[in-house]
């Protein structure tokens, strides 16, 4: 019986949520969208582990362990990994050379392609079929004999191939007897990108949670007034709480449906647009069932809990709504617990990440989460503390706004905390992304290098072959060989002045000069096979060029300084200057190199791979943050409108005695702007510290992310202005002269 009453009350609440006419539907819609977004993100988060697992399972099945000690047999095969780039795409594959008649066959492939033949992934096939990509077809000079099945690929967008060959040798290349050797499946310590992705998810997830918590309270003042009417006809306080719960529940359930819809959109998008490691088959995109159950149960429960806890401070009486007139002073100490825990968790990272210690990523993510959630807790205290100290001097508009905030800052804070948390997260992310980026783009600061590509041969071909190939490549403007001699504890790099000046800050350089890097000094004698060579007294200590990696004690030697010494270089690299005027010069060079030596490596200065990946990540984050800020802006509009409605009488009176609309508009602006600015200050501070810790953790130089701060501040300013602008028409309508009459 009792249960049926409860159900009736819950249903009554649900009905009442839409009975309020357009305003009621709008409120329900906002709650539903707010909850829906949260649910979509949560479902997305619940899907990623399953999708990654499915994808990993397939790449595990084709893993190659090239370091086994296997005798040649009928069922063995030589393999070599190959990666290349074409335009913006990264392409990888395996070169296969069966040694007998029963070689192992990788998953998704029916038979090993013979020399000069290849099987490719569908995505690569499409790329190859594109008439515009003739240069890519020329790269391998191979005939496409088939397509790799889904079971052999990480995802539908993977660019992957198996190329049959007869050029591999046991000297350089691995021998396998099977694919998916268990020993080959070494789970890498969580790589930086995965860490960044995890952190990025936390950064988006927490503000969504905060937003969800705020969303279920949208328009609750109007609801409380409706509940007062219900009390008048005899409902008791407990009943009104259950009716309120029913209203929230309606929004939360609708939110679950919207969230599910958005999630379907999410996976379709991921399926359609996912690239590289983040491309998945639809079948992979199944959320972990236990997590789904958790979401479906927890979201409505939390929504109702938030509603009920908010109603603790409101007394709904039959004749109206009383808010606790003497609000409890906000205490600081417990609000510091969570941020402190976050700092404690993140602190060890200050000395650098030990990628091999187990669970460090959990520590990072938990620390981030604690710190970001801490912001949402700290903000109310901070706003109260600051606003309480603000003088009400200044213009009347300012006075009205400040006094309003001192009177009741809760509503404003709820909306702003979402902004603060997301901005702090984005700045932290931006900071770390910028930091890593700067690791890869140090050269971008100095003048562009003359020899933009280094060719590192993978097999020992005579120099002649290379020079002939380079000479014949269209778009190769110039190239220089760099001979490298590796000795115990030192490296000799022999090249002419033009090249050396790219590798180090050599200053004046003439043939015959020698330069010391990283501790290499004059008068040191090096044994070179049968002969020896002593660095001359003129050897000058210089510093590395910015873009060059450290390589230990190194001597940079012009050919003239070694004249007459028989040098047998361990490696000869070719530094190539491309003619920027020739289209696809880079692809021509890659083709020439690939045809000569499939295992050669091309190093491109101004590495744009990492940069592009990072930029993509940053764009995604920024886009997420913008969507979030727009939503938060919408919720702030609701708050502002509701508040204006409640005060229509006072507004009309203010207008009656001659208050300029500008003054009223100004007070709305200040009222929105002050909490946002305070939230931004807290967010930028915490975000920057967080970024600093993360940058230290990944060993990136400490930089302040002015772009991120500027962009997010700009968006926040737009949100403030937009919210105010959206509130103004209602303000004008409410202050229309006729409104004094309506009471």
């Amino acid at each position: 019986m009792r249960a049926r009453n409860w159900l009736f009350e819950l249903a009554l609440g649900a009905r009442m949520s839409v009975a309020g006419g357009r305003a009621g539907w709008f409120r329900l819609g906002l709650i539903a969208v707010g909850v829906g977004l949260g649910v979509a993100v949560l479902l997305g988060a619940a899907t990623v582990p399953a999708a990654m697992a499915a994808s990993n399972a397939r790449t595990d099945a084709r893993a190659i362990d090239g370091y086994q000690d296997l005798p040649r047999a009928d069922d063995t095969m030589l393999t070599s990994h190959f990666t290349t780039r074409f335009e913006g795409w990264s392409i990888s594959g395996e070169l296969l050379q069966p040694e007998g008649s029963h070689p192992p066959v990788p998953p998704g492939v029916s038979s090993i392609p013979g020399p000069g033949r290849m099987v490719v992934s569908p995505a690569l096939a499409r790329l190859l079929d594109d008439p515009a990509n003739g240069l890519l077809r020329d790269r391998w000079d191979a005939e496409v004999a088939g397509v790799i099945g889904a079971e052999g690929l990480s995802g539908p967008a993977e660019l992957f191939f198996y190329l049959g060959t007869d050029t591999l040798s046991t000297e350089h290349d691995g021998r396998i007897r099977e694919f998916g050797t268990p020993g080959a499946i070494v789970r890498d310590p969580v790589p930086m990108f995965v860490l960044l992705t995890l952190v990025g998810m936390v950064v988006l997830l927490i503000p969504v949670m905060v937003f969800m918590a705020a969303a279920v309270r949208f328009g609750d003042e109007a609801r409380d007034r409706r509940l007062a009417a219900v009390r008048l006809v005899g409902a008791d306080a407990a009943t009104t709480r259950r009716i309120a719960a029913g209203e929230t529940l309606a929004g939360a359930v609708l939110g679950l449906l919207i969230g599910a819809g958005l999630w379907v959109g999410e996976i379709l998008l991921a399926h359609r647009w996912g690239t590289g490691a983040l491309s998945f088959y639809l079948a992979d995109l199944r959320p972990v069932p236990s997590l789904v159950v958790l979401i479906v149960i927890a979201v409505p429960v939390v929504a109702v809990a938030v509603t009920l806890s908010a109603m603790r401070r409101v007394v709904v009486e039959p004749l109206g709504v009383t808010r606790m007139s003497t609000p409890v002073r906000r205490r600081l100490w417990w609000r510091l617990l969570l941020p402190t825990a976050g700092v404690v968790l993140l602190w060890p990272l200050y000395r650098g990440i030990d990628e091999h210690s187990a669970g460090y990523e959990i520590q990072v993510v938990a620390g981030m989460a604690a710190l970001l959630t801490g912001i949402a807790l700290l903000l109310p205290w901070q706003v109260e503390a600051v606003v309480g100290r603000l003088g009400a001097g200044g213009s009347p508009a300012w006075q009205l706004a400040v006094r309003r905030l001192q009177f009741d800052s809760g509503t404003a804070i709820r909306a702003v905390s979402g902004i603060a948390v997301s901005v702090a997260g984005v700045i932290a992310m931006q900071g770390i992304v910028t930091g890593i980026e700067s690791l890869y783009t140090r050269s971008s600061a100095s003048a562009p290098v003359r020899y933009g590509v280094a060719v590192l041969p993978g097999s020992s071909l005579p120099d002649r072959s290379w020079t002939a190939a380079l000479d014949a490549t269209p778009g190769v403007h110039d190239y220089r060989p760099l001979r490298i001699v590796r000795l115990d504890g030192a490296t000799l790099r022999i090249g002419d002045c033009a090249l050396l000046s790219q590798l180090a800050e050599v200053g004046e350089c003439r043939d015959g000069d020698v330069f010391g890097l990283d501790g290499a000094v004059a008068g040191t004698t090096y044994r070179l096979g049968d002969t020896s060579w002593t660095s001359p007294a003129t050897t000058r200590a210089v510093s590395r060029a910015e873009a060059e990696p450290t390589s230990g004690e190194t001597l940079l030697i012009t050919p003239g300084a070694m004249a007459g010494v028989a040098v047998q270089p361990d490696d000869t690299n070719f530094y190539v200057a491309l003619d920027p005027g020739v289209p696809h010069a880079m692809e021509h060079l890659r083709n020439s190199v690939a045809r000569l030596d499939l295992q050669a490596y091309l190093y491109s200065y101004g590495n744009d791979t990492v940069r592009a990946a990072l930029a993509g990540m940053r764009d995604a984050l920024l886009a997420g943050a913008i969507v979030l800020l727009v939503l938060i802006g919408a919720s702030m509009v609701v708050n502002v409108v509701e508040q204006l409605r409640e005060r229509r009488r006072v507004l009309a009176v203010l207008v009656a005695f001659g208050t300029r609309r500008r003054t009223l508009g100004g007070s709305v602006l200040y009222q929105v702007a002050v909490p946002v600015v305070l939230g931004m200050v807290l967010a930028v501070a915490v975000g920057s510290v967080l970024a600093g810790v993360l940058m230290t953790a990944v060993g990136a130089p400490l930089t302040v992310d002015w772009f991120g701060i500027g962009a997010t501040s700009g968006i926040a300013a737009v949100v403030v202005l937009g919210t105010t602008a959206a509130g103004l028409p209602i303000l004008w309508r409410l202050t229309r002269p006729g409104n004094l009459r309506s009471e």
Partner: protein
Amino acid sequence: MTTTVGRGTPLLTADDVHLSFGETTALRGASLHVYAGEVLALMGPSGSGKSTLLHCLAGILTPGSGSIRYGDRDLARMSDTERSTLRRGAFGFVFQFGQLVPELTCLENVALPLRLAGAGRREAQRRAATWLDRLEVADLAGKRPGQVSGGQGQRVAVARALVTEPAVIFADEPTGALDSLNGELVMKLFIAAARDTGAAVVLVTHEPRVAAYSDREAVVRDGRVREQEPAR
């Protein structure tokens, strides 16, 4: 104290004012004169259009036709900004309830019109304090409207209407929400202060005892005014 109201030129004149709100016609040819320094009671049954007429006289509403002249200026022809400026400087207002800004203290509420007119905070609050004192609510200066009684709040509102020493004060049922005792007190202090400053008062009321504080009355009925001739 006897008050003689010169007939002279009216301070504020409504001439053949018509105004409709959609289907309903509120004023149909209302004419009225307000002379400097007089207290004029606007009486009439509910819905007769007396509040609407008050709002027209105060430049809050613009008549559909007819003119409202203040001195030699027609309020109907002025821009919204100009009328706002006029209301800030020359007019004061007391309403029935809910007119004080709930977040501001009583002192700040009274100082607000001065601040809106451009006075500095200190100066505005100093003058506001003297007005709170005159209306015998000086001890409420630091309180918020929510913390004071209805009668006290109305006296604060009267102080706010008078603080700019306007030429006309418009009072719309100023005691409507008060009991007799508080109503009498508010009226006594209000009219005494208005007479001291020489402000004219247009008093909308349906209570004869409140109207008895006036010098003469005008009756609004069906959107028209029956105006009593001013005493000679």
